[in-house]
């Protein structure tokens, strides 16, 4: 399989990259890890005239915490996220760690996963559940977009062709907060989920009442989706099996899976219920664990 021919640019700063992107419009495609883009070029699904290699942009690298807000650079690899660390919420580390294989994780990036916007994307789901925002830099400056509203369809987002995703912003990990990630596939690696679920729970100081919850569902809609019904059921309720079961039911009712060669819609619907329940249990145990650790 051959790559088609294309021009290659290696800008050294974000303004330079944005200016090149502005000149070339939708003829150009930004290149980060290439785990998706290069494959699609070989498959002739995409034929951009120009590839704009982002690896020289320092603005997209590095992570920081400021006043309880974590900023993650778009060029973080999945491996880096999977290895965790103070800035990386456990839920994100779990999702990133289940992406592809070690080789793929060494190349695939945070920004790439968000821009590629596949319905079962292992990094998108945790970020959606974490209430993350993305920073999009464009010719007229930066804008922040909540991930709830960022995804438009498989491979489509609100990002304009002239924009580059530079960062992800999210709340810093703190006690009383926990996440759960459940991925169902045939095998243990190199797998696109049949269904995946990310759950985020924030507990009140009593360590029991749910202050805030988000449940993100994968592979059951054209893009990663939140289940508002599950969040609503959970909020203000005492965390536990009863309410989790109700939330799982709500999530299953909101999922919109289709039949394809990987699995039937009916099976996926059932699995949303099972995985949501498991993800919530996992999130609760993490939230209570982090509480205990602090105490």
């Amino acid at each position, binding site marked *: 399989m051959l790559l088609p021919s294309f021009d290659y640019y290696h800008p050294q700063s974000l303004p330079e990259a944005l200016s090149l992107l502005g000149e070339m419009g939708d003829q150009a495609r930004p290149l980060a890890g290439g785990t998706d883009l290069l494959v699609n070029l070989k498959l002739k699904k995409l034929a951009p005239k120009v590839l704009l290699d982002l690896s020289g942009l320092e603005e997209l690298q590095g992570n920081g915490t400021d006043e309880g807000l974590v900023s993650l650079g778009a060029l973080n690899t999945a491996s880096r996220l999977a290895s965790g660390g103070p800035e990386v919420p456990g839920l994100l580390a779990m999702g990133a760690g289940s992406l592809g294989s070690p080789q793929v994780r060494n190349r695939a990036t945070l920004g790439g996963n968000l821009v590629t916007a596949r319905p079962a994307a292992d990094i998108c789901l945790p970020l959606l559940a974490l209430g993350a925002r993305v920073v999009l830099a464009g010719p007229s400056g930066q804008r922040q977009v909540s991930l709830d509203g960022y995804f438009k369809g498989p491979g489509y987002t609100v990002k304009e062709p002239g924009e580059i995703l530079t960062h992800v912003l999210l709340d810093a990990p703190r006690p009383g907060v926990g996440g759960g990630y459940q991925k169902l596939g045939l095998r*243990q690696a190199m797998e696109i989920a049949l269904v995946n679920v990310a759950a985020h729970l924030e507990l009140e100081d009593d360590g029991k009442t749910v202050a805030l919850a988000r449940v993100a569902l994968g592979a059951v809609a054209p893009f990663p989706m939140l289940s508002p019904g599950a969040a609503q059921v959970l909020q203000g309720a005492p965390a536990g099996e009863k309410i989790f079961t109700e939330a799982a039911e709500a999530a299953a009712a909101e999922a919109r899976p289709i039949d394809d060669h990987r699995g039937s819609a009916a099976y996926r619907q059932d699995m949303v219920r099972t995985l949501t329940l498991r993800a919530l249990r996992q999130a609760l145990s993490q939230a209570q664990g982090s509480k205990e650790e602090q105490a």
Partner: protein
Amino acid sequence: MSGNFEVIGSRAPRKDAPNKSTGKARYIEDIKFPGELAGALLQSPQAHAKIKRIDISKAQALPGVVAVITAQDIPDVKYGVSPARYDETLFAVDRVRYVGDEIAAVAAEDLATALKAVELIEVEYEPLPVLLTVEEATAEGAPWLHDQFPDNVCAQVEQEFGDVEAAFAQCDLIQEGSFFSKRQDGAFIEPNQCVALMDSDGVLNLHSSTQVPHYVQRTLAMVTGLSMSRVRVVKPYVGGGFGPKASATPIDLAAGFLAMKTGRPVRMAYTREQVFLFSRARHGFTHHMKIGVKKDGTLMALDHQATLDGGAYSSFGIATVYYAGSLLGGPYKLPNMRYHGLRVFTNKPACGAQRGHGGVIARALFEQQMDVIAEKLGMDPIELRLKNMMETGDVTCNDLAMSSLGMRECIEAVKNGSGWDQKKGKLPPGKGIGMACGFFVSGAGYPIYRSETYHCTIMIKADEDGGGIVVYTASAEIGQGSETTMAMIAAEAVGIPYEQVRVKSGDTDFGIDLGAYSSRTTLMTGHATKEAGENLKAMILETLAQELGIDQSRLDIKNGLVKISGEPVDFSAIRTGYIKEHRGWQDQPSGEELTFREAARLAYLRLGTLVATGKYKPPVLGGKYKGAAVGTSPAYGCSAQVAEVSVDFETGQIKVERITDAHDCGQAVNLTSVEAQMQGSVSMGLGEALFEEVKFDGQGRILNPSLGEYHIPTVMDMPETKCIVVESGEPNGPFGAKEVGEGAIMPTIPAILNAVRNATGLVLDETPLTPERVYLALKKQKGA
């Protein structure tokens, strides 16, 4: 078993390990020739259509294109695997029969140009009804894919051994069951690739990633019209084959024609998608079995029907459909067996041979039914198996002679090794344990074409200074370790250390070898290698005996030293001569014994270059009935496995946690390689049991032609595997050795099925056991 061997049975490091572990091993992709052209194939996008018109003019006119060929440009010769069923032409003559059927080939200065030219070839199709299932292909009024095969029946087999109906009449229990499996892909790591070039002697050289240089040479010669001596096939390192690389590919042949036409080297390669399109891998099988037993568990009779979805051409299918029946003759004493086999053409890529050829799903259903029978009779499944087990010397009702059979030892080994008695019936909910047995031929008894040819020949040449030997073999190292095996056998036979043996293999100029299929290489090529080694040793010792003036029977070579029995003999003249010849060398022979080096050098000085040869073909094997050629073998390897699984009742996911595996390989040549074959078999069986399925849309296009969407197990999916090697000592094998490569896969699927049944109570009848299939079955069970 291990006899008094110096090399055999050790864990000698593989000859190819340094190259492969450092990236120096050269595969076809790494071998470049000056002036190469790139070739590309035009393959049909239609599953079934008449070709009304082909226009290559635009492709020919594209700058950089050197040649474009279609069926009009080559001899009208049909080929295939079995000569009685030659049904393929390199390029479609007037009809395409599957998505991927070859129509034309292009050679150009570079691959991009060749691919562009392929797009410029215009083909006008007239669609024909697309037959994608056995039911569609055998329906009343369905069009025939091939005029010479009425009703789309590729092959039909009717066999009866004993009297099945009479036996059923005496049975206390008759158990019936069915099984449905899906088409697989070989999923070898290296996609097929080749380079063809004419040399200055007028010989067409083909370098190809193949399991069978000899059959590729024959097919290429026959299709091009060249004589065998004008075609040479060379196989460099190969990244796996598993069966689908056991015949000539369209790119082997097209590259040959293009090299002849252009006078330049032509390289052709399959993409991964094209590997799926060429296929020739495991068939989808449907089996139905009726098994009769007495209430004490005695097996009485089997009535078996199998239907194979063959795809568009015969390929290996005639052998597959026979194997599907014949490999149930053992390893249990089964006095009466009836088999009805049917292979049907459909508009999909042709299926062929894959590890455990034809027998894997038949074995899965039979072993599953054995467990059901055991339960109905109130017996432990192991007890039922042991009760009916054949023993060394037994012959099956279809004339397969078990010249060695360590089946009982294998069962005992996995029973003890897995802790069966502590676990069976005592596991927590969701956990299950199951076992199964199986066996496989140790080499097909007959070549694919009718011939009295030797199956392999070997040439061993001693280095002129006596420092070592070179084994020349046309056999195919495809990753299974045959070069190492032959080096070990030669070392043992000659009596020298393994390090003193080099192996040159995979070149038809080195002799005949039918190739790496049917688990034949260790036994057959091993025999020829042993014979050549012994002949070389005899030549050396005969010369030495004359020189020393003693009887040859007093001489032997062991571990590089000459052993002289009886009275001490003065060999100082030989040593002095050698040392004088090598004045200035640092490593002069010393010590109290004469070395192989000195003896071999002496023989060279007396006789010239020392070359010894060996050869092998199986003795006359049993079976006079139609189809007896498939299944009869000089020996049979056998296996037992215990699988332990956990089943997630809420998702249907199965995790295979542990496999305890015992295989009787007669005598391990290289213990590490035997274990590696056992682990590889478990991996492949696990994939077939749980994940693997080639899927098609309604137009016959493959939906998942990539290793991302076609799921083979990753290392993360592999269970803990305990390998126990059983050595029964095969009288028909070199140093007692027989196969491991395919017998080892036979029990994997049924052991998993039986463990899942133990965990859930479900008798599942369809593989792969995807979470959804298992979940739905569990749901149905709950509802029932």
